[in-house]
């Protein structure tokens, strides 16, 4: 048995050849942070150009490349992998498993990401430039009218899809098959639940995205006419297929974030999560509904009115299960004993700002009003509220919350709090004014704008740089903690934290739960 108990191998080989879920989780997390910086850099180019009217830094074609790559890199490179990394680290520890179910495939799911993003980024230097058709790559701008680099883009998307599919199959197999005895489904921590449901969403929709890009590839190179009316196809077909993937995708982004917040709020309220069962059902309902609302991104394409109404009603319904979640979180805090360490601050930031983003989502779902909102900065504001203040804030909270467990050292609390407050202010300064310019008629994806939008855009750009700069603090804090943080040896780290991962020694050993722990059947879920 000997060779199972030694620690990690030395050198680069440890990372290249590893099958350990913690190593792979770590790589995912660092990779996603690198992508966050890259995507953030693109965003800074966007905001710098939009600081004032007129073209000053980049030309319009390059601006479009920035917008496109910013969206793609953030969604596929930063957010998704970051939550996969979290899942890798935490799911085995939370359900009492020795590792992920399929460790070698796990490593492969990770390693195909970096070269693929390298390939995607390298399109910037190709003839004709990088993809410039938005992260939603609507045909025919992305087919007949696309730069040659689109072919590389298409294959990159195929590979990203492959990575996500394998990653989620792994998570499904782990959750369904590797739970410790007594860890029934309704005892699993909510983070595990939200990821299980997310993984189902991923295996269901990533192949559809692959289908969409495959049709593009055929239209571009092999003479088919899926997206061309001249041959009997329809450009709008692309949008249907894309959003059949794309809408569930946004819940793929947010559900694990819900899971994180559902772990952290009870911990710092020192009170069990309110309405565990309804949280699970609400998550499942959101996932189900996400399959039948896709065309709310397409209210203006000229759908028949029946379609318009159906998609409007279905979309509005999502407010109900999401509301259940929000109310449950607030009730968890109600009459708890709250304290406000950094993870809690970010979770509260999430709660407030995500809900605001949800409200604007509901406004967008009202089809007739969406005729005015659509493709304006109001939409940009909506989705940054749910994706940055939603997903990114909760991810940040997760890092602060579990970092001491991972590396056995405590981060600097006052620096963490400073990071929160600067982020919170910077974020709102960036994206709140975008509601105004959007409502006043500023379209999105434009490199230059009419003069009446100047002031709010300046605010927005200043805010963006503040928010961006505050991430340096975060990076510094994390690195400083890993190299020289104050050691913690307490298993629990946080007095209110519940769950199997907190029963392990701190820092969590390289191999854990090689024999499954016994779960007390009377013990409630965590």
């Amino acid at each position, binding site marked *: 048995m000997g060779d*199972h108990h030694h620690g990690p191998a030395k050198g680069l080989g440890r990372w*290249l*050849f*590893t099958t*350990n879920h913690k190593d792979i989780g770590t790589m995912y997390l660092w990779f996603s942070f690198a992508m966050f910086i890259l995507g953030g850099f693109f965003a800074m180019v966007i905001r710098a150009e939009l600081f004032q009217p007129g073209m000053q830094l980049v030309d319009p074609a390059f601006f479009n490349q920035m917008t496109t790559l910013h969206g793609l890199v953030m969604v596929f490179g930063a957010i998704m992998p970051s939550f996969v990394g979290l899942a890798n680290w935490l799911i085995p520890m939370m359900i009492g498993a*020795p*590792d992920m*179910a*399929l*460790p*070698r*495939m796990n*490593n*492969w799911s990770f*390693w*195909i990401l970096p070269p693929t993003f390298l*390939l995607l980024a390298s399109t910037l230097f190709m003839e004709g430039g990088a993809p410039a058709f938005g992260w939603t790559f609507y045909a*025919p701008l992305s087919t*007949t009218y696309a730069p*040659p680099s689109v*072919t590389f883009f298409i*294959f990159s998307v*195929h*590979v990203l899809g*492959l990575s996500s*599919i394998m990653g*989620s*199959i792994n998570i499904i197999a782990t959750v369904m*098959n590797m739970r410790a*005895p007594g860890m*029934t*489904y309704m005892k699993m921590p909510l983070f595990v639940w939200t990821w299980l449901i997310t993984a189902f969403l991923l295996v269901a*929709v*990533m*192949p*559809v995205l692959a*289908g*969409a890009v*495959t*049709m593009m*590839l055929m239209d571009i190179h*092999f*003479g*088919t*006419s*899926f997206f*061309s*009316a*001249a*041959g*009997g196809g*329809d450009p709008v*077909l692309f949008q*249907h*297929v894309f959003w*059949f993937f794309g809408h569930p995708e946004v819940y793929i982004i947010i559900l694990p974030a819900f899971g994180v917040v559902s772990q952290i709020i009870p911990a710092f309220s020192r009170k069990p999560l309110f309405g565990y069962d309804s949280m699970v059902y609400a998550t499942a309902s959101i996932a189900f509904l996400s399959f039948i609302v896709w065309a709310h991104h397409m209210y203006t394409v000229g759908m*028949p009115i029946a379609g318009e109404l159906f998609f409007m009603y279905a979309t509005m319904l999502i407010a109900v299960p999401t509301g259940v979640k929000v109310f449950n979180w607030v009730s968890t805090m109600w009459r708890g004993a709250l304290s406000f360490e950094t993870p809690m601050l970010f979770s509260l930031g999430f709660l407030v700002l995500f809900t605001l983003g949800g409200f604007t989502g509901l406004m967008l779902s009202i089809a007739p009003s969406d005729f005015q909102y659509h493709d304006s900065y109001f939409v940009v504001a909506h989705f940054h509220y749910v994706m940055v203040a939603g997903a990114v804030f909760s991810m940040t909270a997760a890092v602060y919350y579990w970092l001491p467990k991972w590396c056995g050292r405590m981060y600097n609390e006052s620096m963490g709090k400073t990071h929160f407050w600067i982020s919170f202010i910077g974020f709102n300064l960036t994206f709140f004014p975008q509601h105004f310019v959007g409502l006043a008629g500023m379209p999105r994806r434009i490199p230059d704008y009419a003069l009446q939008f100047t002031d709010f855009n300046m605010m927005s750009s200043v805010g963006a740089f503040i928010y961006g700069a505050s991430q340096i603090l975060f990076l510094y804090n994390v690195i400083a903690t890993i190299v020289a943080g104050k050691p913690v040896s307490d298993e629990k780290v946080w007095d209110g934290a519940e769950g199997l991962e907190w029963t392990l020694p701190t820092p969590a050993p390289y*191999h854990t739960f*090689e*024999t499954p722990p016994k779960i007390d059947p009377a013990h409630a879920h965590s």
Partner: protein
Amino acid sequence: MTSQTSTEYEKYYVPEKSKLAVCATIGLVLSIYGAASIMNDMTFGDPNETTSSWTIFICGLFFFLATLFSWFRIAIKENIAGMNSAQLKRSYVLGMFWFIFSEVMFFFAFFGALFYVRTLVGPWLAGEGDAGRMNGLLWEGFEFSWPMMQTPQEAVGGAAAQPIANNGSFTSAETSMAFASAHAWYAWLPLWNTIILLTSSFTCHIAHMGILDGNRKKFNLWLGITVALGMIFLVVQAHFGLTMNAGIYGSTFFMLTGFHGFHVLMGMTMLLIQFLRSVRGGHFTADDHFGFEASSWYWHFVDVVWVFLFLFVYIL
């Protein structure tokens, strides 16, 4: 909620280290890089340059396949060495199941496209329905029927005459692949192919019964027949003619049958490998034959897809 039978928690085998993932990555990335370069040169570049793209593509693909091959070899060896607990085997089962599910969703995208263009877009282009009633201004003279034998472009008199920018020529379909005459049904290849594929699913099942009985001879025989039927199917399928640029009819037809054919090829290869393992290596026992089982699920899946294809692409 079902909770698993938590009796067997033997040690879960976690492979310590493996170069497989990195090798597979290198192979995959090289092959897509090569493929994309090939395609770009097809449209944009100088034809003499394509050789290096082909080299990259072929080397990458070869490396990728070789890695997969040794990956499966290692997994098989581990199993034979008894390292796989019942729990680990369940992970493989789940893995295969959800992989097939993702394949179902891949085909769903193309079937969805087919239904959408057939039931909505076609009539709209012909100026029917509330959403399409003004389209007569653009595609005058276009009449919709399925199979779409004449594209809107041709209906208005070719690419130069069409009302939108020219982005390719979409000719008429030369032949309808649909079931045309009931008199000559016996000469209609898709029907025969359906029979062949359905039979092969059945023979595959008999092979499974064979191995469950511990009857290797029966297993080998019926599995061999299954593989042979798969090959016949592919050969027959390769005979169908219709050009891809024959408008949306050709596009959907090709995409569906083409990808299906590719999946048959994969499934057949998988079954062939299992066949060779059994014949040459004596692998599989009555209670341990996951490699075969997984391939057979895949085969049944391919079969079911074909039934839908036959129904929606050929018959209706």
